[in-house]
């Protein structure tokens, strides 16, 4: 599955240590630079929009050239970004499997991108929410539980009212998603912080049995406890009338979601917001 791939690639490629200058792979042109600049204005971007962005950059700088296959285009850029310890990482939304992209840090710990936008106590609030989310069974932490921790925050004292607004700021900036008064991690946060989360909470962290990436929301086997992302469930059990747990072979008791189909979605013209709210949360 896609999430594993970027990680695997990162691990197997040894960086070549030539000082400065472009790496042996990958050459940057203005097409790539404009793409990067504009990509950076988004915390996270869905694949369809990424393609649109790519086409735009070609149109501005190189109308005659054939638009390179997105995967190759991104790999090319990533080979240049390697020496800067950042990469364009591909993931998927946990609820419906939409492919998403974000520019993430490979070297420094998680919070640095947030660090410039938020105060010390706000960052600590995020950390507290993060811990509750990771510890939870469903991948969601209730507003109440988060707000109850407001007294323990580092830095300037924060009232609950204020904290509510800060949580909304996190939602607006795509670090958290809110559903019915509960909060979970946005795909942006998962992409940017997966490494950090796995290092910091090795015992509490949940992993998907299929793609082996970090799991916040998903389905679990009631017998043996293994977990899978909803989109991973969808792919794994696709057209399988008798889904069984890949680990213990017991019947899989949950509703199997549909595999995300970008074509179908655009035709239907369904608003994304509606679709998301139709998905029930399962665990």
């Amino acid at each position, binding site marked *: 599955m896609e999430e594993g791939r970027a990680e695997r690639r*990162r691990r197997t490629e040894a960086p070549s240590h030539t000082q400065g200058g472009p790496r042996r792979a990958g050459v940057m042109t203005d097409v790539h630079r404009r793409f*990067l600049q504009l990509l950076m204005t988004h915390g996270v971007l869905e694949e369809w929009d990424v393609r649109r962005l790519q086409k*735009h950059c070609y149109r501005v700088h190189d109308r005659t050239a054939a638009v390179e296959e997105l995967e190759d285009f991104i790999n090319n850029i990533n080979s240049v970004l390697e020496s*800067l310890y950042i990469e364009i990482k591909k993931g998927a939304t946990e609820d419906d499997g939409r492919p998403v992209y974000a520019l993430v*840090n490979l070297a420094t710990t998680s919070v*640095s991108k947030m660090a410039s936008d938020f105060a*010390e106590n706000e960052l*600590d609030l995020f950390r507290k929410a993060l811990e509750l989310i990771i510890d939870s069974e469903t991948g969601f932490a209730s507003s109440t539980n988060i707000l109850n921790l407001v007294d323990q925050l580092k830095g300037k004292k924060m009232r609950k009212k204020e904290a509510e607004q800060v949580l909304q700021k996190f939602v607006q900036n795509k670090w958290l998603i809110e559903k019915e008064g509960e909060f979970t991690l946005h795909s942006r946060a998962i992409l940017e912080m997966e490494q950090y989360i796995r*290092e910091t909470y090795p015992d509490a962290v949940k992993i998907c049995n299929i793609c082996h990436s970090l799991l916040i929301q998903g389905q679990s086997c009631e017998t043996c406890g293994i977990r899978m992302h909803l989109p991973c469930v969808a792919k794994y059990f696709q057209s399988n009338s008798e889904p069984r747990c890949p680990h213990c072979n017991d019947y899989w008791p949950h509703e199997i979601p549909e595999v995300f189909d970008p074509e179908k979605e655009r035709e239907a013209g369904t608003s994304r917001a509606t679709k998301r709210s139709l998905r029930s949360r399962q665990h």
Partner: protein
Amino acid sequence: MLQKPRSRGRPNSQAERERDWGHGAAEEAPSTSRGAGSSQEARSSSSQGSRRAEASPEVGPRSQQQLELKVAELVQFLLIKDQKKIPIKRTDILKHVIGDYKDIFPDLLKLAAERLEYVFGYKLVELEPKSNTYILINTLEPVEEDAEVRGDQGTPTTGLLMIVLGLIFMKGNTIKETEVWDFLRRLGVYPTKKHLVFGDPKKLITEEFVRQRYLEYRRIPHTDPVDYELQWGPRANLETSKMKVLKFVAKVHNQDPKDWPAQYCEALADEEARARPETSGPAPSS
């Protein structure tokens, strides 16, 4: 499986990453680290600068990887800081990123500048000679359609800024604040009234744009009631030009830049001055 992504990136342990950027906040590892296992020290609150658990060698051989990582940090720092459009002070760079590597600061900065330009298309320039503050200039021309694919609003305030820069230039490079408001009133922008797009136009023009160094705002002595004069700031000169602004003004009036001969001449002279060979980039002045 878990640890591999780290091994390539971290010459020093996690403690080294615990530095505060931004508003001197961000303790990067959480206080309740659940047996994360990496280093211990300096986890409690922040004092900036040289807070290394295991000090990298003071001077002497640093590994290629360490240097690479340092340049990477510097690039990131500059990108993030420039997002706010506040010029970046050399002292901040030294404090928050360079630390023990102070002895090779000029080299690190040069390398970072090269990467910034090659990879992102941003040029690192000093705001004014010997100012020891830097900004990033975009080497790519912004294009109207960029707005459709951006993630942020770009800056809706750019329109207002262009108008003010245009006003200043057309009026002979300096203008009184009262004149600015006389003009803007006609566009429905008032100093005292909240604006749908610009919010607080007075604050925007006299504070925000000034802080970002697009404008200079000076009190005119012996005026009663007090009046101020506005001129182009150093960033305006770096990011745009008299000719570009004249073209903008001409476009707004649906005319040709040459219809303003005095300004056109001045803009031409400015273009020529710019075309002359410049001194090389962001070499820190010392």
